[in-house]
């Protein structure tokens, strides 16, 4: 049947294709162009943001910048103001695209693949490798030195160029607190009621007795939940994907398997004991509720979280009650506070391959790192409308008295916008928060592999299998919800090795050794 069909099939297909192409272009071209016109009219009637484009000088270069965050009320007005500013300072225009947390990966991927108009984009460290590999983003190294002086001066040269995969700098990190000191966040009322001595909690082991007390007094409460119990206090440098890590706060330079690493296995065993004792939420591995919501609902006692300056004030609001925190450190009691490549470079600012003028894009990015006005406008909106200065302070700001906060612009993405250190400080934070962040970073232990990014793209077949195994076991191991711990860990590791873990580790080791040698 197939043979008989193939010839007429080919002829018809060819004919139909050429015919369809003509018809398609003619027909749909008409209708669509007609409609885009009306669409444009509509939107310009509505407002403000299009006025910027049609404003005046058509020779002015327009930068398209993608952001991640929530759409804001009044964003068109704010963006018009941003444009006034950028026009004055740089003689450029800027056009923003706001992506959501849940869809940014998909959308950026399409925009990059489709060659849409795009200059500057946020790059999550998890995607960086594939973007580089597919030639979707620009190597910034030379651009930074030539046009990014302000980036270097605000971040320091090491940090500014720290996102380098095999020498390709894919983006510049925002100025933020990067250290990852973490701990446990607990309900204060219960802590007080049971007389728990918060100051005596330093290690995972210390928590066992706390949970025991809580469970005895409040059997209806889950002591702990979340899939981050094991990974929130890392004593290793994950080298991005956890497949092959550097132990001892990244001070050892021999790549080992995390899931056989003593610290990890011991903690995992402990969490498994917690689970069996009923301390861990039964559904911890599958729930989609955040721990904060569970605390608020009164069904959870504590959870792990990164703890940074100003953290507790924010958390009290979220949990709708007073909370207390204790840092969890290494088992020997020494401080666990490590900075790895992926802490600093969580979301970086990169330039898309299709950018029409990469120099202008870099100049714009440089400007974003140097202009307090730009950062304040983008982050908090317009002074006097969206925020006002607190009495007696030049730097502290809050919502205007009596304003309807739901209708105000409050992007509040300081941790992602290039340089929040230049801007105001929102109410509730300490006044010297930027200095505290800086001190916090300075006090951390830098991994020996800080600034190193492995390029494992040649092993994508193995990585696919590894991710599959990882997904199969990780959540249940992290929440302790396995019945036979040792057997599960053995299966887990056997499957990882079968999937090619050793190959990935060897490749990382090889690249790391070469990188370390080049650093000396």
């Amino acid at each position: 049947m197939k043979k008989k069909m193939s010839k007429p099939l080919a002829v018809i297909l060819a004919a139909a294709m050429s015919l369809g192409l003509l018809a398609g272009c003619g027909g749909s071209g008409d209708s669509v162009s007609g409609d885009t016109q009306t669409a444009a009219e509509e939107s310009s009637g509505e407002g403000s943001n299009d006025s910027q484009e049609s404003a005046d000088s058509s020779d002015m270069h327009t930068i398209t910048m993608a952001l991640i965050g929530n759409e804001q009320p009044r964003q068109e007005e704010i963006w018009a103001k941003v444009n006034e500013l950028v026009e004055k300072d740089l003689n450029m225009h800027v056009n923003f695209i706001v992506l959501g947390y849940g869809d940014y990966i998909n959308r950026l991927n399409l925009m990059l693949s489709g060659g849409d108009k795009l200059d500057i984009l946020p790059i999550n460290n998890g995607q960086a490798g594939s973007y580089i590999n597919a030639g979707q983003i620009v190597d910034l190294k030379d651009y930074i030195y030539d046009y990014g002086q302000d980036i270097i001066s605000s971040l320091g040269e090491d940090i500014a160029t720290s996102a380098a995969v095999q020498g390709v700098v894919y983006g510049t990190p925002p100025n933020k607190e990067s250290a990852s000191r973490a701990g446990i966040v607990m309900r204060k009322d219960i802590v007080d009621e049971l007389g728990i001595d918060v100051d005596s909690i330093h290690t995972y082991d210390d928590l066992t007795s706390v949970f025991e007390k809580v469970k005895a007094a409040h059997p209806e409460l889950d002591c702990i939940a979340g899939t981050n119990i094991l990974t929130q206090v890392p004593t290793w440098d994950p080298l991005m994907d956890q497949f092959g890590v550097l132990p001892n706060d990244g001070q050892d330079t021999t790549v080992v398997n995390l899931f056989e690493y003593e610290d990890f296995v011991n903690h995992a065993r402990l969490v498994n004991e917690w689970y069996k004792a009923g301390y861990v939420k039964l559904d911890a591995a599958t729930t989609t509720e955040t721990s904060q919501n569970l605390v608020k609902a009164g069904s959870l006692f504590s959870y792990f979280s990164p703890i940074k300056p100003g953290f507790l004030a924010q958390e009290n609001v979220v949990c709708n009650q007073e909370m207390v925190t204790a840092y969890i450190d290494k088992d020997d009691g020494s401080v666990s506070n490590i900075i790895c490549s992926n802490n600093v470079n969580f979301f970086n600012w990169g330039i898309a391959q299709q950018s029409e003028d990469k120099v202008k894009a870099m100049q714009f990015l440089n400007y974003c790192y140097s202009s307090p006005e730009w950062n304040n406008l983008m982050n908090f909106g317009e002074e006097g409308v969206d925020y006002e200065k607190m009495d007696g302070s030049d730097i502290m700001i809050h919502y205007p008295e009596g304003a309807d906060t739901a209708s105000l612009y409050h992007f509040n993405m300081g941790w992602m916008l290039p340089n929040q250190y230049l801007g105001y400080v929102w109410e509730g934070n300490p006044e010297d928060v930027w200095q505290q962040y800086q001190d916090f970073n300075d006090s951390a232990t830098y991994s020996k592999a800080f600034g190193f990014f492995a390029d494992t793209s040649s092993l994508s077949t193995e990585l696919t299998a590894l991710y599959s195994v990882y997904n199969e076991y990780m959540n249940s191991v992290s929440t302790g919800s396995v019945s036979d711990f040792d057997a599960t860990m053995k299966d887990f590791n056997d499957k990882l090795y079968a999937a090619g873990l050793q190959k990935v580790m060897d490749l990382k080791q090889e690249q790391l050794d070469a990188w370390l040698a080049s650093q000396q």
Partner: protein
Amino acid sequence: MKEEKVVAKTTSSRMQKFKTWYPLFLMMLPGAVYIIINNYLPMLGIVIAFKNVDFKKGILASDWVGFKNFEFLFSSSDAFVITRNTLLYNIVFIILNTFLGILFAIFICDVTSKHLKKLYQSAILFPFLMSMVIVGYIVFAFFSMQSGIVNKTILPALGREPIFWYNEPKYWPAILIFVNTWKGVGYGCLIYISAINGIDPSLYEAAELDGAGKLKQILNITLPSILPNVITLTLLSVGRIFYSDFGLFYQVPRNSGMLYSTTNVIDTYVYRGLMQQNNIGMSSAAGVYQSLVGFVLVLLANLIVSKVSKENALF
């Protein structure tokens, strides 16, 4: 085909033929144009499966890598499990949805009360309206180990111990099959309803006069009349036998790792493996592989059908 004979005929009969058929081809033109634009032109993208795409060079100019992008589908130890799961689930789904779809359609068409008929017809369509994410929540509402209705209310009432649903793979084939039927049976059912409604009522009247019972009427009139629809629908499902409803296998078991032995299918495997990697070549390869298997199977199935009864074959 009759082309050879046509050639012998005079040009005027060709004109005749053209005159007969051109209005019909004209009717098909909008659809044909749409299919070419929406389906055939992007199909050039299948080359992506065989390339290491570099957008600096453009898709077409990127390097060929042969079948390298396909390796990950076969190299892992999960390859057998995901293939087995995908196939078995789909076979069960096809059988169950066809059987229940026809059964419900017959019942609905035969119900004499107009109000009840409307109620049933709306009801079978309802699950269409619910996305799999939400279905996942509802299943969780029943089976959550801590607060689910089953563990909290039903099992204690029966004096049974709670069950760790999300840790035990053995319960999931039943749950997934139930959910799929719950959500999917309405689709075929509606097609069958319309087919049954299209049957000439005089056939039934005649049978009634002959004293044929309900069962006999169903066997002798209804089923043969809707058989072509059943075959079309089944062949279409066979073509997609290597695909699975991603939401069903990902959202409903809540991505619980311990359930993979009975919930992991090709689509979820590909998603989990490539989520972090964004590898367009490999995801394209997975699609090509799934399509190809479905294509071969459907050609075989169609061949068998056309051997048995030629007019019922799909093409």
